[in-house]
C-alpha cells in the first residue's frame, strides 16, 4: 500500500512534466488514483503512460463510461490501466458533453480497446474518433438508442 501511494504520483508527476496543462484534476479515493484529462491531451498522455519504461502501463484492463445526466459534461469515459512491471493501477478519465460526445480512439495504443470502445458506443452513445470499426457489438444492428444512458428507461421504451 505504501509503495502504491508513493509511486502513483510518479505517473501524475510525469504527466504534468510532459504537459503542464494536461492534467485537469487528480482524485484519490479508497486508494485508487484517477487522473482527469482534457480530451485533446488524451492520446499524447496515454502514449507516454504506455511507452515510458518507468511507468509501463501496457495493459489496458478495462474501459467504461458513466452517464451523469443531466449534469454537463455528461459522459465520463474511464480507462483502467495496469502496469504489470510495477504492479500499479491507474484510472484515466475524460469528460465529454452531450452535444459533442466523442473521444479519440486509443485502439492505436492499446488494441484491446477495440471492443470496449464499440461497447461504449453501443450502450452509451459516445463516439470514438479514429476507431477502425465503430459498430454495435451487444445490441442488434438496427437497435435505436443507447440503453445505458440514464434517460433510457430500465424497462426499455414500450
Amino acid at each position, binding site marked *: 500500500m505504501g509503495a502504491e501511494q508513493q509511486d502513483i504520483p510518479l505517473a501524475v508527476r510525469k504527466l504534468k512534466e510532459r504537459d503542464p496543462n494536461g492534467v485537469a484534476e487528480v482524485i484519490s479515493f479508497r486508494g485508487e488514483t484517477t487522473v482527469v484529462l482534457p480530451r485533446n491531451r488524451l492520446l499524447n498522455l496515454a502514449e507516454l503512460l504506455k511507452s515510458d519504461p518507468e511507468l509501463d502501463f501496457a495493459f*489496458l484492463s478495462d474501459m467504461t463510461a458513466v452517464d451523469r445526466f443531466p449534469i454537463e459534461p455528461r459522459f465520463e469515459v474511464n480507462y483502467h490501466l495496469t502496469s*504489470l512491471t510495477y504492479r500499479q493501477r491507474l484510472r484515466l478519465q475524460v469528460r465529454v458533453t452531450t452535444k459533442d460526445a466523442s473521444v479519440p480512439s486509443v485502439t492505436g495504443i492499446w488494441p484491446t480497446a477495440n471492443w470496449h470502445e464499440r461497447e461504449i458506443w453501443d450502450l452509451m452513445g459516445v463516439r470514438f474518433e479514429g476507431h477502425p470499426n465503430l459498430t454495435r457489438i451487444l445490441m442488434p444492428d438496427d437497435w435505436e438508442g443507447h440503453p445505458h444512458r440514464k434517460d433510457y428507461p430500465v424497462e426499455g421504451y414500450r
Partner: protein
Amino acid sequence: MSTTVQTASGKAKTMVLNMGPQHPSTHGVLRVILELDGEIVIKAEPVIGYLHTGIEKNCEKLTYSQCIPLTDRIDYLANLSNNLGYCLAVEKLAGIEVPKRAQYIRVLLTEMTRIASHLVWLGTHAIDLGAMSVFLYCFREREEILKIFEAISGQRMMTSYFRIGGLALEPPPGYLDWISGFLDTFPGHLAEYEDLLTENPIWKLRTQGVGVLKLDDAIAMAVSGPSLRGSGSDYDIRKYFPYSSYEDFDFKVQTQTAGDVYARYLVRLGEMRESVKICRQAMQKIPPQGPFRAEVRGLVPPSREEMKTSIEGLIYHFKIWTEGITPAPGQVYQAIESPRGELGFFVCSDGSNRPYRVKVRSPSFVNLQALPHLVVGKLIADVVASIGTIDIVLGEVDR
C-alpha cells in the same frame, strides 16, 4: 456469400463460413464468421451479443445487496467468484473490513469454484477434440463440488453465498469434513485425467503448436488468466494485487511459455493442483468460531441474535433490508482472479441506496477478442480447439 482476394498465384476464390450461433463447440451462443482459403482461415470475426441481458443496467434499479443474485448469472460456471468480485467492490466503496474468518471461507470456496470451473472447461474441451470419457469423469467430480455448495448455500449453482460484509449464513456443521473428503480423492482423479491426456499422442497432435498466442499479442489484447499465463506472463491478481487475504497463502503461479493449446491445458491442470493446496491451507486457517460477517452499523445487517434482542439491532436490520445501504459517492474498480482471468467490477456510487453504475470487466469478453490471433493462418479444423482453449462463458461475454 463469397469474396475474392488476391493471392500469390493470381485470383482465388475464398469462402465465407458462418459458424454458430447454434453450434455445439462454441460453448454457448457465439457466432464466428470465418473466411477460408481452402482449409486455411484468413479472417475470423467473432460476433457476440446473443446472450445480452442487460445485467449492468438492471443493477441500477436494484439496491446494492439485490445485485448479488444477478452476479451469479454473469458467469454461470464460477458463481462464487462473481459474488466475491462484486462484494469486494462494494466493500471497498463503503469501506467495510471483512473478518478474517469470512475472508478465509471465501478463499476456500472460490478455490473450489476454480476447480469446478476448470473441470467443466477440461471436460468440454476434451469432448470437442474427441476425448469423450474425460468429460464424464470431470462432471462426476464437479457434481461432488456442487453438492458441497448446495449443502453450504442451499443452491448448486446460483449460490449468492457471499454478501456485502461477509457471508450469507454460518456454514453448516461438518462442511470442512465434506470438503476435506473431496480434497483427499481429487488429486487421484487429476492423475486419471493426466493418464488419459497428457502423454496421449492424439491429444498432443491436436493441441501442440495449435492456437499459438504470442506474449506481446496477449498483453496488447489484455488477455488474462490461464490464457495469458500459457504465453509466459505470471500475471495473477491473487499475487499482483492480493485481495481477501490471498497474501497469507503459499502457492505457485502456473506458467508455460509455448502459448499453444497444450500449454494452456498444462496451466489449468497445474492450477487445479494449486487450488487443492490453497484449500487445505484455508481449512487450517479458518477459525472454528467467530463472526462470519463484519459488524458495521448501518452497512452490514446485525446478527440474528442482536436483531432479536436489541431495539437498535432491529432498527438497523429493518433499515438495511428495506432501504439498503448508502455508500459515499465515488467510484472503485476491484479485480479478482476468476477461473478465466481478470474479473473486474467497477462500481460507481452517487450516495443513494442504488449503484449509480456497475460495469463488469469480464475476462471472457476481453479474451475472446484475441481469438483471431489464435486462428488466422491456421487450419479450420483447429478453430474448435482454439475456441475451447480460451475458456469463454457466453453469459459473461454478453452480460
